[in-house]
C-alpha cells in the first residue's frame, strides 16, 4: 500500500512538473480510488516522460500540451508496439531485404547504399494511431485505451519506396507489398507484426522509407534506423525497424491484415484497398478529417481575460484543411478560426481563435474542421468494433472566473 502511494505521488510529481496540474483532476489521479486507473508518467530509455498506457509492449502517448508546437519533439513522440521483443538495431548491421514472388531481382541494401543510391525526399506528415481517442468511445471497446496523444507531426526524410522497388524490378503480377520490422513476439507461436499495402500505395511518390525525423536520426522507439512513412494513412502501416519488403502476387493473409485493423464497410468509405476487402469489412486506410483543441482541457478553470485564445490542430487523410470553425456556446454559433502556416497537405494545420468573453462562468468550446474535399467532423464518433477513426467534434467546458 505504501509502495503504491509512493508510486502515485511520484507520478503526480512528474505531471505537476509538466505544468499539467489540471490533468491531475481530469484523470482522477489526485483522488485515485477504486478501479479507476491513475495517469502514470514514465520515460522510456532515451525518451522524456510520456503518458504510460502499457509498459510491455511499450505503449505511451504524448501529453496534449506538446501539440502546441508545429512539429512534435522526437523525445516526446508517442510510442506504439504490438510485440515485446524490440531489438536495438545497429545502423552498420542493418539490412533491408527486398523480395517476394512478384519481384524480378531480389536486393539487399545497407543504410549507406540507401542514402547513396536514391534521391532524398522530405515530407511533413502526421503519424496517427488508428485507435487514437479509443477511450472516448461509449460504450467502451477493448484495446489500448488511448486518449488524444497517440499522434505526432514530424518532418520525415528518406527515400521513395517506389525508387527502391524500381531498382529491384516489379513483376507484372504484383498485387500487394508486404512490410516487416525487426520486432517480434516473445513466443514463436505469436504472429509477427506484418502489414501490406496495395501496389498503388507502395508506388505513391509520397510513400517513403525514412531515416530521419525532424532533422535527427529516428529514435529507437520510433523505428531506428528506418521506417515506412505512408502520409495520409493511419500509422499501422508505418512499419518501424523495417527489415523486409516483399512484392507479392497474392493478398497477404496474416492476422494483422485479415483480422486486425479492420472497419465495417457500411459505415466508412471504401475503395482504397480492394484486395483486402470482404463483403462487410475492409482495412482501415486514410485518416478522417479531425481536429484537436490543444491549449485548454475539459473542466479547466481560467482567469477571465479580455481576450481568450483557443488553439489547436486539424488534419485529414491528405486533401488538406479548408477551414476550422470554433463555437464557444456549445454549437449554437460557429466562427472561423485562423489557420496558421501550411506545411503541406499531409501535415496537421495549426489554428487559433480569439474571443472576448462577455460574462463569467462556463463556456462549452467546440472545434470542427472541414477538409479540402468538403468532408467535416461528425458530432458523434462512428461506432465500430475496434474503436478506430474517432473524429467526433470535441466538447470542452471551461470555467472563466
Amino acid at each position: 500500500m505504501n509502495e503504491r502511494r509512493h508510486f502515485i505521488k511520484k507520478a503526480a510529481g512528474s505531471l505537476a512538473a509538466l505544468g499539467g496540474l489540471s490533468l491531475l483532476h481530469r484523470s482522477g489521479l489526485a483522488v485515485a480510488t477504486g478501479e479507476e486507473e491513475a495517469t502514470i508518467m514514465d520515460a522510456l530509455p532515451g525518451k522524456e516522460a510520456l503518458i504510460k498506457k502499457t509498459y510491455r509492449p511499450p505503449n505511451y502517448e504524448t501529453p496534449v500540451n506538446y501539440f502546441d508546437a508545429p512539429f512534435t519533439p522526437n523525445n516526446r513522440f508517442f510510442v506504439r508496439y504490438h510485440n515485446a521483443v524490440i531489438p536495438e538495431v545497429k545502423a552498420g548491421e542493418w539490412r533491408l531485404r527486398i523480395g517476394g514472388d512478384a519481384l524480378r531481382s531480389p536486393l539487399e541494401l545497407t543504410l549507406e547504399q540507401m542514402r547513396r543510391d536514391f534521391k532524398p525526399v522530405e515530407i511533413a506528415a502526421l503519424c496517427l494511431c488508428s485507435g487514437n481517442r479509443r477511450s472516448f468511445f461509449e460504450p467502451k471497446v477493448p484495446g489500448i485505451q488511448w486518449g488524444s496523444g497517440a499522434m505526432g507531426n514530424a518532418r520525415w526524410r528518406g527515400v521513395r519506396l517506389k525508387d527502391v522497388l524500381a531498382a529491384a524490378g516489379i513483376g507484372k503480377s504484383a498485387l500487394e507489398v508486404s512490410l516487416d520490422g525487426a520486432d517480434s513476439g516473445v513466443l514463436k507461436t505469436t504472429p509477427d507484426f506484418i502489414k501490406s499495402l496495395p501496389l498503388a500505395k507502395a508506388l505513391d511518390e509520397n510513400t517513403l522509407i525514412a531515416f530521419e525525423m525532424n532533422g535527427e536520426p529516428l529514435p529507437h522507439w520510433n523505428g531506428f534506423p528506418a521506417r515506412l512513412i505512408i502520409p495520409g494513412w493511419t500509422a499501422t502501416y508505418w512499419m518501424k525497424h523495417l527489415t523486409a519488403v516483399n512484392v507479392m502476387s497474392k493478398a497477404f493473409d496474416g492476422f494483422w491484415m485479415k483480422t486486425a485493423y479492420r472497419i465495417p464497410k457500411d459505415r466508412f468509405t471504401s475503395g482504397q484497398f480492394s484486395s483486402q476487402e470482404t463483403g462487410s469489412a475492409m482495412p482501415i486506410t486514410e485518416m478522417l478529417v479531425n481536429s484537436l483543441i490543444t491549449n485548454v482541457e475539459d473542466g479547466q478553470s481560467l482567469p477571465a481575460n479580455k481576450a481568450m485564445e483557443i488553439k489547436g490542430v486539424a488534419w485529414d487523410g491528405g486533401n488538406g484543411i479548408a477551414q476550422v470553425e470554433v463555437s464557444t456556446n456549445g454549437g449554437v454559433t460557429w466562427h472561423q478560426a485562423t489557420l496558421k502556416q501550411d506545411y503541406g497537405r499531409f501535415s496537421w494545420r495549426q489554428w487559433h481563435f480569439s474571443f472576448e468573453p462577455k460574462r463569467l462562468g462556463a463556456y462549452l468550446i467546440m472545434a470542427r474542421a472541414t477538409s479540402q474535399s468538403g468532408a467535416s467532423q461528425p458530432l458523434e464518433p462512428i461506432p465500430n468494433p475496434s474503436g478506430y477513426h474517432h473524429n467526433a467534434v470535441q466538447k470542452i467546458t471551461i470555467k472563466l472566473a
Partner: protein
Amino acid sequence: MRTLLVLSSLFAATATAGENQIILKDRPGKNQVIAQCAICHSPDYITQHATILDRAGWEKTVGKMINIMGAPINDYDKQIIIDYLAQNYGK
C-alpha cells in the same frame, strides 16, 4: 516443468522496472495469470480493461490470446484465468 522454468526466466528478463509496481489483486488464480499472461505482456493490459470487459469479454480475450497469439495455456489454467479476470477485473 522444464518449459515453465524457461518461460519464467524469459519473463524475468523482459519485465520492465515499472511493471513490477503493478499489483494484481491477491486472489486465487493470480499465480496462473502472472505465470501465463505476463510471459508476453505487462499486467496493465489487464487492469486497463477492468471497466470494459465482462465475463464474456474476458472469455473472448483469453481465447484470442490462446488461439491467435499462441499463448500455451491448457484448458485447466484457461478456466482459472478467466474466472480470476471476470471476478476481479470484470465489468
